[in-house]
């Protein structure tokens, strides 16, 4: 079994990288990629802590449900991006400043 700290350090780095991607990039799809990265960082933490209790699968189950919610988020998010792109001809979130014309 590997040291738990190494999992947690990797999770921290992935989460910080995802946060930076979300803030820095000027494209809605890139923001979605950053959100996926942050969700994966949390999944890594849950799988790592699940090792402390070898008989239990609570952490792995929660990871499964997080993956399912990530699927829903990606599907709805991409549908909204697609729709906004058709309407405004852009996928830059800063240029979309109103919900209706």
């Amino acid at each position, binding site marked *: 079994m590997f040291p*738990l700290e190494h999992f947690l350090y990797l999770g921290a780095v*992935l989460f910080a990288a995802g*946060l930076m991607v979300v803030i820095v990039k000027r*494209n809605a799809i890139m923001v979605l990629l950053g959100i996926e990265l942050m969700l994966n960082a949390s999944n890594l933490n849950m799988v790592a802590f699940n090792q402390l209790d070898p008989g239990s*699968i609570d952490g792995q189950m929660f990871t499964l449900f997080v993956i399912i919610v990530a699927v829903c988020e990606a599907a709805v998010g991409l549908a909204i991006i697609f729709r906004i792109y058709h309407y405004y001809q852009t996928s830059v979130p800063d240029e979309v400043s109103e919900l209706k014309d």
Partner: protein
Amino acid sequence: MNAAPLMFYFFEVMAGLSALSLIFTRNVFYGALLLIVCLLSLAGIYVLAFAEFIAVTQILIYAGGILVVIIFGIMLTSKISGKPLVVQHTNWFSGALASAAFLGILLYLLSQHSFHTVQASPNPSGNPLHQIGTGLMSRYVLPFEMAGILLLIALVGAAVIASSAKPKKL
């Protein structure tokens, strides 16, 4: 010679490096490919952490499902076909400040706390896959059904939002 630590640190370095280079890449398509590399390395780490089912799910759903959908999205939202979709960067200072502060806090707290590492066998109570299958139908049946309903609602909603029926005023 045990190869498991070598594989573990290889996967960790791959995941970290691809996540960091995702920050600096300007091409959205390369960004999606870097995310695939990161997710596959995470699947390798999950295997080494005795979570094989999660690893297979990660490969099937993330690398096979979400990333394909994202690549479709990239191709559908690029203005000129044949030219790569390039992103501008903005808010460099605030982004670096926020993520560096967050990373600093996390690393400080993790270094303060020492986690006891149990040298336990991977799974004493039999086959983990069997355990997950039984768990999904007994103890976790309510979240399982809720996840199914959520998935149905989200997919129907996504299909309705992205459908090509034009609204009245456009």
